[in-house]
């Protein structure tokens, strides 16, 4: 059996607020295999965001182990983490986080510039990813000229551009209407079918239903971890269209 993509052992994180120590994550042990589509759920303050930040190598844990692809990431330096984020991870945010006044193409190519990929090569790869998310026609558009759904697809193309093993999506449909949200889920499911592991944070059960494993957080601990029969997003999308017609 292949080693898991992610393995955490008693992963903990506490924040210091003046003299008081606030525990945000109290020992999380779990494994995520390659190719899984996971929905992380939980109320605010449950520790799911902290968990995502740790998975995303944006923060150092205060205790426990985190192995990403067999590497003990918890002991990496800041610069090594930056390189790891650049090579192995893709982020999708609720508010898209695209650079304003920058074309879709340049937004998508951004991670490659930090990975020392030559400009021409970076543009080529960014163009390919934009075509993959269906925005080949909008490459030269700036975020302000794109709809919310299109902006999120640019963000997904950006997350894909470095061929990451893992995509972390933090409420990717939170700022979108239902129809556009389902459209994004169609895209994420398609990417997952190609073998990309996706961890998605959401508080909507409708969105979590598109994943095939649901992990629930509460008070800094995993309180639920179950398999889910994933709904087919593209079927839902076509159904929506029929209702509209």
């Amino acid at each position, binding site marked *: 059996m292949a080693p898991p993509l992610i393995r955490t052992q008693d992963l903990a994180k506490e924040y210091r607020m003046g003299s008081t120590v606030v525990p945000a994550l109290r020992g999380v042990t779990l494994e995520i295999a390659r190719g899984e589509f996971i929905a992380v759920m939980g109320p605010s303050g449950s520790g799911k965001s902290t968990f995502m930040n740790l998975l995303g190598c*944006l923060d150092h844990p205060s205790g426990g182990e985190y192995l990403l692809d067999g590497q003990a990431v918890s002991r990496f330096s800041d610069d090594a983490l930056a390189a790891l984020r650049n090579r192995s991870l893709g982020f999708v945010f609720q508010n898209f986080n695209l650079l304003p006044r920058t074309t879709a193409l340049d937004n998508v190519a951004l991670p490659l510039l930090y990975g020392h990929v030559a400009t021409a090569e970076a543009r080529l790869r960014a163009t390919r990813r934009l075509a993959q998310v269906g925005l080949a026609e909008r490459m030269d558009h700036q975020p302000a000229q794109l709809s919310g759904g299109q902006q999120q697809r640019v963000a997904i193309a950006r997350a894909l551009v470095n061929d990451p093993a893992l995509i972390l999506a933090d409420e990717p449909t939170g700022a979108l209407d239902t129809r556009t949200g389902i459209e994004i889920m169609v895209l994420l499911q398609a990417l997952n079918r190609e073998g990309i592991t996706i961890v998605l944070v959401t508080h909507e059960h409708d969105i979590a239903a598109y994943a095939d494993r649901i992990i629930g957080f509460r008070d800094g601990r995993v309180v639920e971890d179950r398999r889910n029969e994933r709904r087919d997003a593209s079927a839902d999308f076509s159904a929506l269209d029929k209702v509209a017609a």
Partner: protein
Amino acid sequence: MSFLATLRIALKALRVNSLRSGLTMLGIIIGVAAVIVMIAVGRGAQSKVEDQIRSLGSNLIIVFSASSTFTGARSAAGAAYTISEEDGYAIGREVEEVYAAAPTLRGSGQVVAGNANWSTTFYGVTTNYFEVRNWSLAEGRGFDQAEMNGAAKVAIIGTTVAANLFGSESPVGQVVRVRSVPLTVIGVLQKKGQSLSGNDQDDVLLMPLSTARNRVLGATALAKSRSVGAIHIKVRDGVDMKIAEERIRELLRQRHRLQPGQEDDFNLRNLTEILQAREESSKVMALLLAAVASVSLLVGGIGIMNIMLVSVTERTREIGLRRAVGARAADILRQFLVEAVTLSLIGGLTGILLGIGGALAIGRWVEWPIELSSGAILLAAGFAALIGIFFGYYPARKAARLSPIEALRYE
């Protein structure tokens, strides 16, 4: 990220807020332009003063006949002739500190050549006068001792006189009349331009002292007393002017039999002192300008820091995103530093162009040589870059130290 890509991002960020960037640069532009103008004008002024010192004859002391209170009514300085030709020779002979002393007589009148005439000042001088004043000839020759002794009817004229009497023709060999005395022009002085007080130093005619006394001025009292209007004295190199002045005063008081407590019947004037004071004041001017320029550069630098801090705050989310997709803290530091330096360098280059233009314009206006130096320009450009680094570092470090999570969450 490559440097070129970083530079491109910086230029783009500056272009997005082009008005803000322009205003921020203004301080640097003014500062750098001021530095360049200051150095160009300052150097020009200094070299002009140095030229004047050289043309006046360095180490020059002039003794004038003083106003005499002999008759009770004070007359103007130089009006009464209290010093004599012999005083001049005695100073040259007896005062060790003196290199040469040239007694001179001065008069003014019409100079006529053919049907042209010109009103000018003429001087009766000794052969060493040229050496004392550091004057040289553009054409012809100077007086010789025989002409001196024999009150020869010869003259040397300045270029202004030459131009007015002879136009473009060579005056050497021509005859001019001064107070009806015909004098043969044997030489033309090198052009000297304006004096410090604005007199045309080329509007002059020189003749042997004896000629002036015996033939041209011809005043009986003068001829008998052998008195002169002034003695020009060149002090030896390296001698303290104060000491030389004191020796000359002592000698003259002794020769004029002045009692202790009695007023001098002559005036000593040291032109170098006046010039040095001028040079001093031009240095003070340059220093003042430098102070203004550095204050402007400092204010400009603070402006850059201010705008960079605003920019870092505005772009906190962007910083978070860049960190998330793989930028190291050092990449962020470099990005904002390059932005600050680009801002100050563009300001610096604009300032250089403006400074050169300003210096040339001022040069045309004040009519003195402006000395633009590549050193000053390099200095200004280097200073601008330094300011960018110095004042850009703090905001850039602030940006680099942002935690990626907090930056991403920033509203």
